[in-house]
């Protein structure tokens, strides 16, 4: 996809004709990466502000409203302040691993933005193994968190790291299983194809959510498991504020801590984006066919609809965080292995049987075909 963009760019601008093709594609890649990363960081910054506002609203108070108009510059102030803090690496900590851990966690959560289908043509690179790629990259977070836990030579951090490892590993199984129904329906791993498979039929009913009762259940299973994957309450045991002082990032200060902070919000968006793409019809605009529209308008509408759905799920996560208490570690494990995994397997079986019996057609399609 990058080459096509590069070729079209070379033809459009005569001055660039002398430039060899591979530098052109490299240039385009860098530009697209920059755009996606700035979107991700801006989103993560604003998400911290929105979380504190949502928390304020729920708790009958006002969130930050003094830093800049309505407090909008709060995340900027936090970021710059964290940047300027003294950079402390504990004496007995393992210096190299201590410094490496935040980058791993940051890469783990922001690299997944590559395959997020923002709009009709708006995707960094439409990998044909999209879903697997996200599953693989997001397990890099586990490595980073364990590294952070062990290397900061602090008992609380070690406990936080161990808990994170156990939790994320044991919740990747249900996350994977819960995504497979969408892959089965679309017949391809690429997220753009999954989204395209949900088009038509008045937009709403094309979604995988309403495809059949099993996919309906698997959306909620996926969302719960994804909550655990991103360490959000009620599964925020690795950085349990009240038990482990603040889990694996106890010893981190300044910009290193900012990496963890942003990575958490990055993860939240990636997980919501996946849920939107696989179950809520991705960038499909409800009453008009986004692909038929002219390129500019099509992309704009689809981007808007996609962000609305994804950010809606992020808000839901924030709402859950300020309501539910925290699970204990063994209850967390029990919930994953005794509740989520069996149900997702049973669900996967159900979807595949359904597709076999009804030749891949969902309930809405069957009703639509009844009416001709």
């Amino acid at each position, binding site marked *: 996809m990058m080459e096509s963009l590069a070729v079209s760019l070379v033809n459009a601008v005569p001055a660039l004709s002398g430039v060899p093709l591979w530098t052109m594609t490299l240039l385009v890649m860098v530009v697209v990466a920059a755009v996606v990363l700035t979107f991700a960081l801006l989103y993560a910054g604003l998400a911290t502000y929105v979380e504190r506002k949502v928390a304020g609203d729920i708790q009958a108070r006002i969130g930050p409203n003094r830093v800049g*108009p309505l407090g909008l510059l709060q995340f900027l102030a936090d970021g710059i302040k964290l940047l300027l803090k003294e950079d402390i690496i504990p004496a007995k900590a393992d210096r190299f691993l201590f410094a490496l851990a935040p980058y791993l966690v940051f890469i783990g959560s922001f690299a997944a933005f590559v395959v997020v289908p923002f709009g009709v043509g708006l995707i960094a690179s439409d990998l044909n193994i999209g879903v697997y790629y996200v599953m693989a990259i997001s397990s890099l977070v586990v490595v980073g968190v364990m590294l952070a836990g062990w290397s900061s030579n602090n008992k609380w951090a070690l406990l936080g790291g161990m808990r994170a490892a156990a939790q994320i590993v044991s919740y990747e199984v249900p996350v994977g299983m819960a995504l497979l129904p969408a892959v089965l329906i679309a017949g391809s791993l690429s997220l753009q194809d999954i989204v395209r498979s949900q088009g038509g039929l008045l937009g709403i009913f094309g979604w995988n959510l309403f495809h059949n009762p099993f996919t309906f259940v698997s959306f909620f299973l996926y969302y719960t498991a994804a909550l655990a994957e991103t360490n959000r309450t009620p599964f925020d045991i690795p950085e349990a504020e009240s038990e482990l002082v603040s889990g694996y990032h106890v010893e981190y200060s300044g910009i290193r801590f900012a990496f963890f902070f942003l990575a958490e919000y990055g993860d939240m968006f990636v997980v919501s984006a996946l849920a939107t793409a696989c179950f809520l019809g991705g960038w499909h605009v409800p009453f008009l066919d986004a692909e038929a529209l002219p390129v500019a308008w099509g992309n704009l509408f689809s981007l808007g609809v996609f962000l609305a759905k994804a950010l809606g799920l992020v808000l839901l996560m924030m709402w859950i965080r300020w309501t539910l208490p925290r699970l204990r570690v063994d209850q967390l494990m029990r919930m994953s292995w005794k509740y989520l995994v069996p149900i997702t397997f049973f669900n996967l079986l159900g979807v595949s049987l359904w597709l076999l019996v009804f030749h891949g057609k969902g309930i809405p399609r069957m009703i639509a075909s009844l009416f001709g």
Partner: protein
Amino acid sequence: MGAHRPGNAPPEGRQMSHDPAHSGPAPAVGPVSLGPEAHVMVGNADKFINWCRKSSLWYLLFATACCGIELMQTGASRYDLDRFGAVFRATPRQSDLMIVAGTITHKMAERLIRLYEQMPEPKYVISMGSCANTGGPFYKDSYCVVKGVDLLIPVDVYVPGCPPRPEALIDGILKLQKIIEQKRNFAAKA
């Protein structure tokens, strides 16, 4: 009953509210300036950085005694420290303001010093309440209370009261913000 006018945001734009008359500006630490032009550029950078530091003062959750309850109530719904960008952090590593809320005994003194040393550099200390200011009610007869926190760590702002009202604590934090505003980061080093 308190004047409860649920307003969502104060009049925008006004950076700092009116200043209670008698608090007076803190003694400005003004080093030798570098000449007009350097000052302008450095001045703006200083102002911006101080603004960032001032508006995101993360305070360490360090509540030993009665003032700790008032600290909690300042962070709760009615007085809401979150408006000023102040969030409580559990670890000294991530906090840049330590509010010593409560009595410091000799057994606790060494822990207090260690916590203070663990905080990354641009750190500030507010001594909240009479116990932290001068040993307060336990000044005369108690054998195991440290008579004032500034025997242990340098203190930026003293908030009198026993326990001080949440408004008094917020007034202390506003004064601390004014002190931070006047700090010279770059010019001082030249």
